[in-house]
């Protein structure tokens, strides 16, 4: 990790990686969405609303993975004082909040025709809504700390403490058996969804993950460029 502590070395890798991730993400998301909308058959119970799965599941994964990345960046900042850790945490927060919000929105749109309601105070839905609010709190706290010229340690602590919500979201369907269905997809096999319905999901999962990573890299590059600009202006003012 410390090999990338030098911003110049990081940028040397981040510049081509941004373009590659963008290209890969757009192709896979377009293919997965086209497959999910036009090729897969309707589900025998849910009908065509099952197609929302191909965008809802990646949004849920990225909403949670985003906070996982914030927690990892927070540890890296607090324990090893990695110079890019605070920048990485802030860069992930906005796309993470966006995908957590999209998870809630697509779940609500799916819930209306399937459950007969837009919202229910179910364990999974409520813990995901809390994650969305945690993101908003983190974004506000990190921005306020940065404005005051702080290192972002309060935001890092908040990011670490907020990670307690991740296992709560994951196990909520086991702990509180209310409306949201249990786990139906597993990486290690044993998914309860038919393969002819499932195949576009890996495409949208990998595609949206690549787009998320591209956005995070773009936001890191933005903050590094702004830091460089501020440093140069300060230096020229001092001369």
């Amino acid at each position, binding site marked *: 990790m410390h090999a990338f502590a030098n911003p110049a070395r990081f940028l040397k890798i981040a510049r081509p990686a941004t373009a590659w991730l963008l290209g890969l993400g757009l192709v896979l998301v377009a293919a997965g969405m086209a497959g999910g909308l036009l090729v897969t058959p309707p589900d025998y119970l849910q009908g065509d609303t099952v197609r929302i799965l191909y*965008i809802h599941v990646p949004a849920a994964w990225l909403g949670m993975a985003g906070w996982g990345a914030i927690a990892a960046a927070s540890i890296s900042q607090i324990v090893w004082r990695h110079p890019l850790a605070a920048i990485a945490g802030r860069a992930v927060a906005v796309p993470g909040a966006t995908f957590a919000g*999209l998870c809630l929105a697509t779940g609500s*749109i799916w819930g209306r025709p399937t459950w007969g309601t837009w919202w229910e105070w179910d364990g999974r839905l409520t813990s995901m809504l809390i994650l969305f609010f945690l993101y908003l709190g983190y974004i506000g706290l990190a921005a306020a700390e940065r404005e005051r010229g702080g290192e972002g340690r309060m935001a890092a602590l908040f990011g670490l403490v907020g990670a307690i919500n991740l296992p709560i979201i994951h196990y909520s369907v086991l702990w509180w058996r209310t409306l949201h269905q249990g786990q139906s997809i597993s990486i290690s096999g044993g998914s309860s969804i038919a393969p002819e319905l499932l195949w576009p999901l890996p495409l949208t999962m990998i595609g949206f993950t690549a787009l998320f990573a591209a956005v995070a890299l773009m*936001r890191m590059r*933005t903050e590094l460029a702004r830091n460089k600009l501020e440093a140069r202006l300060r230096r020229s003012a001092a001369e």
Partner: protein
Amino acid sequence: MNQWSFVLAAYGVVIIATIVLLLASWRAMRDAEAAAEAVRR
């Protein structure tokens, strides 16, 4: 309402939000890197 209305609404929300997120991030990066480069010259 037809099931397809819900499907298209969900896809529309995701596509629009993703495009806005990508464009806003790309524009902010382009402007910041151009400004940093302009000061160096």
